[in-house]
């Protein structure tokens, strides 16, 4: 689980980093985390990737993780050891996937714009603050429902809990489509 403070050196990417750049489709033949980690960010700007270290905090502009729904993208980032991602905004499916697998992500347009590659970044989870040099930036707090998933340790734990409490996999309620 995530501790209360995340510290790391920043490596900065631009807008619209899609999942093909995070993990190119040619590596999707595997679900092996170590193999995915090896190719993390391989499709992104080679000049940035050249200076990136496995424990860097990934910082990006708008729409990080757009494109395909491949969960391999947040999995590769987490498996590589990047402690978190800070971006101006995240694409929706990437956001869900990151929460579901327990990769910490923080939406803060001001922080994402201010941070430069090489900056020492500290994320204070309890205080909802990102600290860079002398500057402090608030990040968007998760809604209650998402905090519950995080508290459970990811979606799978939440599902495990549901299955246990119901004794057996529940049948869906009759929906609107008249089944």
């Amino acid at each position, binding site marked *: 689980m995530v501790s209360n403070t995340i510290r790391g050196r920043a490596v900065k990417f631009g807008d619209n980093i899609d999942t093909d750049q995070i993990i190119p*489709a040619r590596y999707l033949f595997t679900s092996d985390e170590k193999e995915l980690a090896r190719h993390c960010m391989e499709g992104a700007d080679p000049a940035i990737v050249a200076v990136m270290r496995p424990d860097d905090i990934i910082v990006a502009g708008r729409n990080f993780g757009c*494109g395909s729904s491949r969960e391999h993208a947040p999995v590769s980032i987490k498996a590589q050891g990047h402690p978190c991602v800070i971006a101006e905004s995240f*694409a929706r499916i990437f956001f869900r996937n990151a929460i579901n697998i327990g990769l910490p992500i923080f939406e803060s347009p001001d922080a994402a714009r201010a941070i430069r590659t090489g900056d020492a970044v500290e994320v204070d989870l309890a205080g909802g603050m990102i600290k860079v040099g002398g500057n402090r930036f608030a990040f968007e707090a998760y809604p209650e429902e998402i905090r519950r998933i995080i508290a459970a340790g990811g979606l*799978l734990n939440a599902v495990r809990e549901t299955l246990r409490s119901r004794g057996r*996999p529940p049948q*869906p309620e009759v929906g609107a489509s008249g089944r």
Partner: protein
Amino acid sequence: MRMGMTITEKILAAHCGAASVRPGQFVECAVDFCMGNDVTAPLAIKAFESVGATEPFDRERIALVPSHFVPNKDIQSAEQCKVMREWAQKHRIRWYFERGEAGVDHALLPEQGLVGPGDLVIGADSHTCTYGALGAFSTGVGSTDLAAVMATGRIWLRVPESMKFVYRGVPADPWVGGKDLVLLAIKRVGFDGATYKAMEFTGGAISRLPMDDRLTMCNMAIEAGGKSGIIAPDSVTEEYCRGRCRRPYVFYASDPDANYREENVFELDVSGLTPLVAMPHSPDNVAPVDEVGDVRIDQVFLGSCTNGRLSDLRIAASILKGRRVAKGVRFVVIPATPAIFLEALRAGYIEILKEAGADIGDSHCGPCLGGHYGVLAAGEVCLATSNRNFPGRMGHRDSKVYLCNPAVAAASAVAGKIISPAKIGIRP
């Protein structure tokens, strides 16, 4: 008095057992149908097993489609497909499609009547938003979400704000299709302009639009960041669904007093619209085809969940009849499903395309995602009817992808450069 709801809000309300829902609300919904493919399902299966789930929620409501790296392109992709196949056999998954009956997932499911109007559909693939063309709420998720759906039949969702795109007028240009209508919307709002939102397509130009074009439009909602795309069902929908949908379906429509924020409503006059092209490296980098300049191409790809349907092949065949693919251009054509392939064969389209020099593949995602069957080398340029053109999407990071409709793709294959059919004197 009850506030009016959008079609999306009505479908979500019906599936979470509420009389009404509002944007921003979190709801837990019953899922009518879910799907995964050879890229996403193996991870989902791993997750399914890891939570101790013993049986899927409903073996009739899960589709598993080997669509991406098939026919198995190497040992590793063969192993992925094997995981999916064996799990499907073990749980007697009704809608596991073996190669030969499988195709591009998002072309296959509507065609086979597995998804229909009023449904709530969850798919572990970003282009699951395609089924909104039928008047369903349908959205893409990752593998862990799919695992949760396969285990419980339910999913948490945040009710999206709805955006309304009102298409006014009828395009005078005969080569304009659904692809151009959706590219126009993506250009208007930008690559992330619809993030977390439902994109509702409406207006006179939509009511006349055939189902194939509607599927193309909703397919690309994700390219503006949209959670879903949707078109209210009408007589075109009814005609498509009658005798095809395997479950009873419900038509929903937005209330006249449904709440759209002012900044979420877009009026688009399309009467003067000409075919559009999305230039590298973003689907919102859109310009009329006549304004992209002199762009030589190495490859043309006609296919994918966006534009690999029968009408797309018909358009391409009409242009290539009696013509040849330009020397030095590779024209890769992939009918999206076996049924489409057969119909195109019987109608003579396949023969025309083959005689013109096309390379025809058998119903898979092909080069769209740079996996196999037409991967690009450094510096190469591809014009594709698919949906994405991010850096490296179809191969080397230094390759370039332009996106267009099937008519522009076919005309450009003949010319060897990006061009509209009208420009080289081709009329419908």
